[in-house]
């Protein structure tokens, strides 16, 4: 819980532990909160001891789990599904759509291993999840890097009447970005993590940290870079996006997701639809490739969307 956290910018904390503590906090307060998993509930270690009657582990059966979540929600419960993103978003995709979203049920998906952070290779990489989840009608899509934000979002989700997908980064070792309690997070809002006037880097999840590091590199060259945490991918904070375009002209989108169906796509859709165009626009992220093995950091470097690549892209835009 927030008061126990020693906060230091950039230091590691486990988002999964924060989620595990928060669901206990919620379950104590709300008798309709459930923690359920398909044999992937590392965050539920304590919860299942404290609330065995509201814990379900179905074994490795994600489709079934999403169906059960729908059944629980139909009866007035708020089930939190804990699992690894590729299986939650792809194996159970139709159940998420038809059993949960079609009926507009308040199921929460807490997914770990966003982007290429899993280290387990292409079977476990999560490159498509935002594209898939944001295409489901009624689904809300949030992507979070800062582990302490998980608590804020889980708390706000208690009064949110729709399905909600919460994409975490690696989940065990995540960078702290914001002092707990300093900001209020809302569905449909972005957060300006750093002010700047020459260009804006819009990022989500762990890439916000990379973007802030890139901004530090650029500062050495006298370039003043704004960094925006677009944690709410659907709905998108268009007002903030257009303000960034107006203020800085140049827009770089940086994300640990396929470049052609994630935040960058949502942003370019919004710009085209509204007829508000950046002076220059560039996207960095995962290309159309199965990235294979390596740590998230190594793969980001290999495929050209780490802080160095981001800094170079901004410089290029300002030429």
């Amino acid at each position, binding site marked *: 819980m927030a008061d126990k956290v020693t906060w230091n910018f950039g230091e590691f904390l486990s988002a999964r532990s924060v989620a595990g503590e928060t669901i206990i906090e919620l379950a104590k307060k709300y008798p309709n909160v459930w923690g359920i998993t398909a044999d992937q509930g590392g965050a539920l270690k304590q919860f299942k001891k404290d609330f065995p009657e*509201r814990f*379900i582990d179905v074994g490795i*059966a994600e489709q*079934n789990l999403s*169906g*059960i979540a*729908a059944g*629980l929600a139909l009866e007035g419960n708020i089930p939190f599904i804990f699992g690894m993103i590729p299986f939650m978003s792809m194996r159970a995709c139709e159940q998420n759509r038809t059993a949960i979203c079609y009926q507009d049920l308040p199921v929460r998906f807490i997914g770990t291993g966003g982007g290429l952070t899993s280290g387990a290779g292409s079977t476990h990489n999560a490159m498509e999840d935002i594209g898939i989840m944001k295409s489901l009608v009624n689904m809300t899509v949030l992507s979070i890097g800062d582990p302490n934000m998980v608590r804020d979002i889980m708390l706000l989700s208690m009064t949110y009447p729709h399905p909600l997908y919460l994409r975490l980064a690696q989940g065990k070792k995540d960078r702290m970005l914001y002092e707990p309690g300093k900001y209020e997070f809302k569905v449909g809002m972005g957060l300006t993590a750093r002010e700047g006037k020459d260009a804006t880097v819009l990022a989500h999840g762990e890439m916000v940290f990379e973007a802030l590091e890139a901004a530090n590199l650029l500062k050495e060259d006298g370039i003043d870079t704004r960094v925006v945490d677009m944690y709410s991918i659907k709905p998108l904070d268009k007002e903030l996006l257009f303000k960034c375009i107006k203020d800085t002209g140049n827009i770089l989108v940086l994300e640990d997701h396929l470049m052609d169906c994630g935040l960058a796509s949502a942003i370019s859709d919004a710009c085209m639809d509204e007829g508000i165009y950046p002076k220059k626009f560039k996207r960095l992220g995962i290309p159309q490739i199965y990235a294979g093995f390596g740590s998230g950091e190594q793969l980001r470097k290999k495929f050209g969307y780490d802080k160095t690549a981001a800094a170079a892209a901004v410089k290029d835009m300002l030429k």
Partner: protein
Amino acid sequence: MADPKEVKRLQALAYDMRKKLITLTGYYEGIVHIGGDLSVTDLLIALYHYGMKVDPKNIKAPDRDRFLLSKGHAAVSMYMAMTLRGYFDYDTLMKTYGRLDSAFGEHPCKIQLPGVECSTGSLGQGLAIAVGMAFSARMKKEKHRVFCMMGDGETCEGEVWEAVNTAGSYKLGNLVGIVDRNKQMMTSFDGDYMNLEPYADRWRAFNWNVIELDGHDMAAIVDAIDQIPPITNPKPTVLIAHTTKGKGVSYMEHEINWHAGSLSKADTEKALADIEANYDKLGGGK
């Protein structure tokens, strides 16, 4: 043993429902899944008019039994059984079924049609949802049952067996599955390509209590419902109802073409004549 008077009453309702289903199919210019509708007619009448604790005037009563139609393409038969119970207006069902903005769609939608417990239509998904509802009831110490009707064809889906496994493992005694075992899928008979036997053993192997019955023998259906153990039973129960797709209409029974279709005026008249000819067998007798 089932009360003969009660059986007679239910048979008469099922007889009426068959005629109304044929009339609707003849009236509607689109396609109706009439084969599977007729195979679950007797079961749905028995559930909505005898087996389940429901009140059409209080559709949100917390202690009501829950019913999910996993074989959502038989929606019209559920609508009809519910209409005969007093949930919906027959004329509205007849005139609007399947049409733009109607609450009575080809597959049931709980948002459009209050009284429906769950939107279904994508096969194989109902049982897992019913398992979730059964978990909730048990946690809240509620006394009702959750009924889930499946087609045997949709039990080819893996998700069904994931849910069967969960319900057996967690000993969900408040869950009742009903399988419309008509041995016919959309394009083939059981055994042509996929073989579902030994069917009952498959459920038993997952720690379910199995009751097999003739799904067109009203006395047998009533007996089977009476045999469902109390919700404290350490096993969920499945009623495997042996049925015939298109039951009651001679030209539809055992015909692969009658999974779904529309009826010409002549087809409609012939089907109604068939049902009337089988008046006593289908329980039309007073």
